[in-house]
Each structure stands twice: as C-alpha cells, then as structure tokens.
C-alpha cells in the first residue's frame, strides 16, 4: 500500500515538473525566439493590411472572392471550392470528407421550399465544373456528369435477384422531376426522372461515363475542395483559365495579367517538393494595386 502511494505521488510530482518544463518553459521559449525581427511577422500569421491599416487577411489563408450572394466577383481570380464552414471560415477548417463513390444525392422535398436536398460529391464536382465553365467561357463537361451539371447516375432495376434478368425500370437518381433525364433510354427501357422520397436502393447504381475524352477544360482543383478548406493557392492551370476574364473585366491585356500570375506563382520547393501553385490573395491584391477595377 505504501509503495503504491509512493508511486502515485512520484507520478504526480513528475507530471507537474514536466508540465512546467514542456508546457510552460518550452512554448514560451519558442514564442520568445519567434519575436525576433524577421520571424515575428511570420509567427503572427503573415498578416496583410491595406493602406489605412485595416486587416485584410493572411497571405497563408485563402479567401472567397464573391459577392454577398456567393456569386464570383469577375474582376478577381477565384479560389478553390471550400468545405470550411460557409466557405473559407478559419474558425471551422475542414474538408468535405465525401468518398470516391459518393454519387447519389438526396433530392429536395418539393413541399418544402427551403429544402435544397443534399448534393453528394459527384454532383458537387459536376455543378462546379459547369459554373466555372460558364464563368470562363469554356466547356464545363466532365466524365460522369450530365449537361445540366449533376452526377450522371442511374438506378437500374432488374427482374431477377442479384441484378440479373431483364431490365424493368431505370431512374436517373440525381435529376429531380420534372427534369428531362440525360439519357432517353437505357437498354431499351425509358429513363425516368427522380422523385423525392422514392426508395431506389434495390436498383443497381450505374454511373454513365459519357463520351468525353481527353482532359476537361476546367482543371481538377477548380472542382474539388481542399483538405483545410483554407487553401490559399490554386494550380497554374486554374489561374491560366481565369486570365482572359480578369483582363477583359479590368480592361488590360492578357499579357499584363499573365505576368502578375507568374510573379505570384511558386514552383516546387528545391525543384521536387510539392506542386507549383499561385497565391490568390497576393495576386488579387497586386491586381488591385496596379490595375484598379473601376467598373461594377
């Protein structure tokens, strides 16, 4: 008994001593070193201020360049989609966590005007691709996407068990009625649109790839959310896609915009670490500084 008490008392005392060393002295020492000029700005979060001293944000943390309704402001380069809160919310950093076969949406309840359903990953990708395509004036088409910008997924019902026998019914599960299904017929059976609340779980899910080949015009990072939801960067491909629109809206040449993009592009570290990327906030700030936007 006495040995046990001695052991626990030693444990408690060692924990307290170690808390002082590793929990107080250590972080404070690092914080002190971090106050050295040169380190201080970084330790404080690489903050960016405008001319009158208001805080604009951090060069490390991405932002939305949209109006109040979430529509992209055409004079700015746009960031990636974000799953952090309502978008680029640093108090709720997060990824979407939707899986590679997250392909069936929950359709909206027609009786409830506020219900917009739940879009799963495939439809999110398709709808973003369509929206970016329209904004930049290129095709937003992708494999497994309908022209209307949802996941091209069928529930195929069979006469026999085990998905065997003749096809009896086919439903385009992500297209709520009265939408016209992206395929008229599948294996000779007319394709129906989806109805809210119907149970399609007995059907076999078949995603229709479509005839698109080659690389889609809208790059991968433009249609996928990042891990943090705060990604400050986009790929050089996505930046290149946005050059013409930004130049047109600001009334400057593509070349002027392109040279600014190049200035804010970081290559791979040491030539092989990570991927080349363009910092969107830095780029947009620089654009406003050099070529102020006067339109609406």
């Amino acid at each position, binding site marked *: 008994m006495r040995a046990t008490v001695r*052991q626990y*008392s*030693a*444990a408690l005392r*060692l*924990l307290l001593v170690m808390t002082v*060393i*590793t929990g107080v002295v*250590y972080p404070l020492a*690092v*914080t002190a070193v*971090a106050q050295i000029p040169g380190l201080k700005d*970084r*330790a404080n*979060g*690489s903050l960016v201020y405008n001319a009158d001293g208001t*805080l604009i*944000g*951090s060069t*490390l943390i991405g*932002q939305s*360049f*949209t*109006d109040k309704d979430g529509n992209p*402001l055409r004079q*700015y380069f746009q960031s*990636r989609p974000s799953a952090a809160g309502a978008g*680029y*919310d640093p*108090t*709720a*950093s*997060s*990824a*979407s*966590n*939707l*899986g*590679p*076969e*997250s392909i*069936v949406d929950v359709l909206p309840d027609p009786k409830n005007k506020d219900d917009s359903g739940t879009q799963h990953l495939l439809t999110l*990708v398709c709808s973003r691709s369509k929206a970016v395509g329209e904004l930049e004036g290129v095709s937003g088409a992708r494999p*497994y*996407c309908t022209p209307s910008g949802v*996941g091209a997924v069928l529930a195929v019902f069979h006469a026999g068990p085990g998905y065997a026998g003749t096809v009896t019914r086919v439903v385009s599960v992500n297209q709520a009625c009265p939408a016209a299904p992206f395929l008229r017929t599948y294996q000779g059976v007319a394709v129906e649109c989806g109805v809210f609340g119907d149970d399609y779980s007995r059907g076999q899910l078949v*995603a229709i790839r479509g005839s698109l080949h080659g690389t889609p015009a809208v790059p*991968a990072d433009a249609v*996928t*959310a*990042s891990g*943090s939801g705060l990604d400050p960067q986009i790929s050089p491909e996505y930046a290149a896609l946005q050059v013409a629109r930004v130049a047109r809206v600001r009334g400057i040449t593509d070349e002027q915009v392109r040279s600014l993009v190049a200035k804010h592009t970081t290559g*791979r570290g040491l*030539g*092989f*670490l*990570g*991927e080349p*990327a363009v910092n969107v*906030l830095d780029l947009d700030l620089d654009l406003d500084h050099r070529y102020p936007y006067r339109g609406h």
Partner: protein
Amino acid sequence: MSATTVAGLAFAVSIVVAVSVSFRPLGDYMARIFTSPSHTRVEKAVYRTVGVDPEADQTWATYLRSVLAFSAVSILALYGLLRLQHHFGHPYAVPQMPPAQSFNTAVSFTTNTNWQSYSGESGLGYTAQFLGLAVQNFLSAAVGIAVAIALVRGFARSRTDRLGNFWVDLTRCTLRLLLPLSFLVAVIFVASGEIQNLHAYRSATGLAGGAQTLPGGPVASQEAIKQLGTNGGGFFNANSAHPFENPTTYTNWLSTFLEIVIPFALCRTFGKMVNDKRQGLAIAAVMGLLLVTTTGLLAGAQLAHHGTVPTAVGAATEGVETRFGVPDSAIFASTTTATSTGAVNSFHDSYTSLGGAVTLFNMMLGEVAPGGTGSGLYGMLVLAVLSVFIAGLMVGRTPEYLGKKVGRREVTFASLYILSTPAIVLTGTALAMSFAKERASMLNSGAHGFSEVLYAFTSAGNNNGSAFAGISVNTTWYNTALGLAMLFGRFLPMLFVLGLAGSLARQHHVPVSDGTLPTHRLQFVGFLTGVTVIVVALTYFPALALGPLAEGLR
C-alpha cells in the same frame, strides 16, 4: 512519367536518404541516453523534487506499475484541465468540454493516439493546448520509448529480474531527446511561416468585403513535438492540411521526415544495446521494406485515381491542398498511418477506395513499419519472437532469439500481444455496426460508411488517431467506446511487452550453435515480413473486404 510522378518519387527518395543518414547518429545517441550511468544536474534536481531514487532498478512488475501510475495520473490531470478550461482567462471565448469528450481527449493524448473528437480552433483554449495536450505529446512519446527500452534490456541482460528505472528513462527521454530536438524544429517551423503567438483571434475584412476571423496560438511549438513524437493531434481541425500548421512544401517534407526518424533510429539503439548492430539493421530493413511497399501502393492508387468521382475530376484532389499535390499527400498519408502519428495533410475519407484501404492496412499491421515512438520497435520485436517460434516449429528446433529461448511463457505473452488489438478493433466495429444510432454517424453510405466505422476503431485500437473524418464521433457512445479502445489498445500490449521483457531478462544467454537460426540475414528479414503481413491478412481480411475492397471493386 509525368512531372508530378517524378517529383513525388524524388520526395520519397529524399526522405529515405534523410532517414538513412540520421539512423546511426540518432540511434547511437539514444543508446547513450539509456545506458549512460551519470545524471545531469537538471535531472538530479528533478529526481530530488519527485522523490525517486534514480539508481533503483525496477522489476518488470514495478516498471509496469510505474507506467500505469504515471498514465493514470496524466489522464486524470488532463481530464480535469479540459473540464475546467473555460474558467481560465483566454483572449477569446472557450466553451466547456463535456465529460465524455473530455475523457476521450484525455485518454487520446495520454496514449499517444491523439484522436480528436473536438475541433481545435473552436473547442479548445490555449491553456488546455499547451499545459495539457503539448505536455502529453512529449510524455506519451517518452513512455512508449521507455517501454521499448525496457524490452530491449530484457534481451540484453541475463539472469536478472531488473529492467531499469521508468522514472529515469522517462525523464532522460524527454529532457535529452525530445525537448532539444523539438525546440530546434519549432524554430525552423516559425521561420517557415507557422504561427507562434498568444494573440486573440483577429477580425479581418477580406478583399471582397467578407468578414474572416483569423485564429492565433502557439502552433509551431506544438507542431514540432506532434510530428517528432508520432502524436498527430492537430492544433486546428484540419491538422497538417491547415496552412498555419503546415504552410509550405518544406514544412511538409520536414513533418513527414519527423514522423519516422525516431521509430527507425530506435532499431539502431536496439542493435547497439544488444551488442549486435546487425540485428537492429535487420529489424529496420523489415520496417523499411513494408513502408516502401505500402507507400508505393498508396501513391500509385492515388495517382491512378480509380473510382467514379476521381475519374470525373481527373485527379484525386478532393481533400488535397494545392501546394502539396497528390503524391506528397499520399506519402504523408502512408507515413502517418504506418507510424502512430495520425496527423493528416489531406483527408483520407476522400481518397480512392484502394488508397484508403492502404491507410487502413498500415494501421492494421499494428503500426510496426516503423510504428510509433517506441511502440513500433516493441511491436516488431514481439513479431520477431513469434516468427522465430514459427520458424522453430517448421524445422523442429528449440527457437531462440538473440540468445534467449522462446519458450511457452514468451510465446504466450507474444500471442496475447498480437491478439489484443484486433480483438479491440473488431469488437468495437461490430458493436457500432449493430446499433442503428451509431450507424447513423456515418457521413457516407454503404461500404464507404462501414470503412468510416472500421477506420475509427482501427485508428483508436492501434493508437493512431487519424480518421475517415466524415463520421460524426462526438457522441457519448463513440467518445466512450473509442476512449476505451485507445486505453486498452495502449496498455494491454504494454502489459504483455513488459511481461515478456521480464521473462527474457531472467534467462541466461544461450551460446550460438549450428542450430541457431540467424536473425540478421536476408532470409529472416523476408520471413519476418511475411509473418507480419500474413498475421494481419488473416485477422482483418473479412473486415477489409466489407469496406474498401467492396467499394473499390464495384
């Protein structure tokens, strides 16, 4: 081959080179730490304050009781700190943490798991972060190393019932190894852009006029030990994907390297302490072989981007940061699940089915390739004991490893060790799947939803801490069940390891004879690798088939 693939390969090769270069000096340094007869002045002061005799040599039972006493006190203290955190002054509003979540978090950080059912930026105050979590980041890593060293002493010593002094091992490991290295790394991290401050959260007005609240915090100091001690608990919810936690491709490289450098170097420490460096090299070779293979498979699966959504996108970029890209994210995913780190710089739930399967498989290996700080080495040594036993059965000789006979007692301890974690993982998963309310926590449906539950219990039982993060685990049931899985997944194996160490230390060394199976040659490396993979495959294949394999083969 695309530029991305080539760069990814170069990244992997540079990590292998860096780990190989540090293997010898770091391993030798750690061996000196645990064999040196003298104490530093600071250490002497610590022992006086704590009231322990640093020269006292402990039996395995006393060593175990010390580990348990220290861990119990740690859990209680951390639980109290989390429950009371909202009373401490903070430059921003900090909520109270509910009991089940506090239990889960206290166990999580004390067991080196760092599973997080809370979100750092909204659920925790700075005091709990650095007085509680950061402290356990150091101490839980040191406890793991201490237990591994006790097992190594079991092999190295003969005709004794003494395995060393837990208090001394813990103190030395923290003060001589983890603290100085973390300080160095933290300064590099700050210089690369990680934040290190105690500021209030700041309000910003974005360029487009939107409001944004920017968090602060002592991130770099916590990040250094989070990676070095294979802890993995992120300061923020997005963990190492968060630009304040992992801002550049350089910090990402360093973070990857730090996860595996100590687990590998401990093999050298082992070789040095048993006076046969080739034995350490053989163990490291098995770890390296497994890690390189799984990393290759994982990166391959991610680059091939098989599956409906990755094909629609054209790349597996969902949940991946632009600056890291797909290959470096996949390499990180592999090193974090093959060690007990569990930090993530990209989100495994959105990985391709086969890529996600490899992260699960890595943890199911029992995290021995190279595993957590200490836990990786003792896990692999237990597998080595088992392999020697199996080899002995095949050729009909009395098995021995490092001159110690592997008899009934040793095999019993090794078997119990091997069985305990799978029992926890599979029981927990089965229980969760049998309740409708617990099944409802899945974000994704079908096979992928099952993978989320399986991943949660695999991660908790193996003390990893990463997640298929779509699952909502902040419920009383999951907080309690996963908390218990972490607790048993940590201390049951430690009990068997120390028991094994005790019975090995009592034996005398049998001299090497013609009948001795050489355990430093390529043949044994291959055999041990095979045993490790087969044990896992037999245990977990049905569960893997229901989850990621079913999804990937659809």
